[in-house]
């Protein structure tokens, strides 16, 4: 993986997104079916926030010790929108920025995903998992200008 290459080389393009009015139950379905940990919240590809698996588990926390209450859990998830738990005002990057800039952002902060936004349009998402996946493909990371 060339650390000086653009993030678009390793990002996940066209990620699963939800609108702010989608329910937390809809987010749960995406987490479950597609094994992702972050869902950008957008209207017409304009980014508004992001819901992570941790936000979702935090919402459900009260139920984890009582598995009998699954029905109430479903009811709550279907009556609350993702806008209640999404993180707003998040860091974004453009797809042409360099991968090492993303590494610095991940190093300095506690989050694990950066939405990639080009001219106001959400084009992808870069997660720490993308970086690990690409590192694992190579034998080693290198830096080289084209």
């Amino acid at each position, binding site marked *: 993986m060339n650390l000086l290459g653009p993030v678009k080389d390793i990002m996940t393009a066209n990620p699963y997104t939800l609108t702010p009015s989608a329910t937390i139950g809809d987010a749960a379905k995406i987490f479950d079916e597609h094994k992702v940990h972050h869902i950008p919240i957008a209207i017409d590809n304009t980014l508004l926030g992001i819901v992570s698996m941790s936000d979702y588990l935090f919402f459900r926390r009260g139920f984890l010790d009582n598995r009998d209450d699954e029905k109430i859990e479903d009811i709550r998830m*279907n009556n609350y929108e993702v806008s209640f738990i999404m993180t707003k005002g998040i860091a974004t990057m453009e797809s042409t920025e360099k991968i090492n800039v993303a590494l610095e952002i991940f190093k300095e902060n506690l989050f694990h995903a950066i939405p990639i936004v080009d001219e106001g349009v959400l084009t992808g998402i870069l997660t720490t998992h993308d970086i690990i996946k690409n590192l694992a493909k190579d034998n080693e990371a290198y830096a080289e200008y084209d």
Partner: protein
Amino acid sequence: MQNTTEIKVLGTGTSKHQMVTSVLKEYINKAGIEITVNDCNDIDSFLNYGIELVPAVIYKDQIFNIGSNGSFNVALRKVVTAILKNSNFGHLEKIVIPIDFSNVSSNAFAYGHRLATDLGAVTKAVHVFSPSANEVVEGTTENIDFIKLHEVYLEDFVATFDHDWGSDLMRVSLIDSEYRTGFPGEQILDSIDENAADLTVIGSTGKTGFFQKWFGSVSTKIMNESPSPVLIVPEGANYHGVHRIAYAYDNINQDKKVISELASFADRFGAEIHLIHVENGGVPDPGYYLSELLCKEYPSALIITSSIKTDDISKGITDYCITKSIDIISLSTHKKGFLELLYDDSISQKVSAMTKLPLLVLK
């Protein structure tokens, strides 16, 4: 003796201390209660009160610790609720939601609580314990205190909805719980009256067949006798905001009160009002008259009138509600015959739609 119209917020000026003060001020202001909120940064006085952890709130000689254990947000919500409860939450709107811990009522509670959040109202969870003959016998012979048991159920239920799940927790409607014993119908009506409830949200059984069976006898009683509007939430309904409210009417002259009530309810959400007239037996459509009445109370841009020509009234209205993605259907109790027409026979297609559409009964 502390001044009863004063709240002292003890702390050292940290961000949490400031947050407690500002949240209390905001809520007291919203509720229009005459209580002053004062900061107290004097460490000596903390010791006098015997407080080890700050921030803490002192009201009417009662000490509320915030964040000493568990969640800061939940503790703060409890303090605000306890203080406002003394004045029945002032000007804040109150939504009474009866619960019996069934799935139907849990769903109605979730729906109503979410609606209350959008309205900036307070949610009142009311549970009425009505002991069955079995419970009376068991209670006497096996020494089980069912009253206590149901109180604990209620606390647990409220805690389920009131636990900390996000940074926006203060934005969510405050929940106050009320435990009563007696006949459910009467007790709920008493609670609506005592709390001066602005709206009652109640679950419907969703069974097909006769009118009473559909809504359940308690819901029917409350719908008929409550002085304020009642929102009946079927089990399959989930809250997705209120964007479109349909008002179905036939040929009966509408009274002004119902119309203005509908307009003010819709206005809170900026929702469209769909006036649906069902042409039944060649009765002329009084839609223009209704829109004229509504325009005085409500922006005319959001009023949509339409007329349905069909032999099957309920199917016509249901189809309209599906195609226009109506969120709430509204009717007035004056027209019970019409209401029964909507719900009273069991065509499978109609049933599937009506099991998802909340019904607002205006007075």
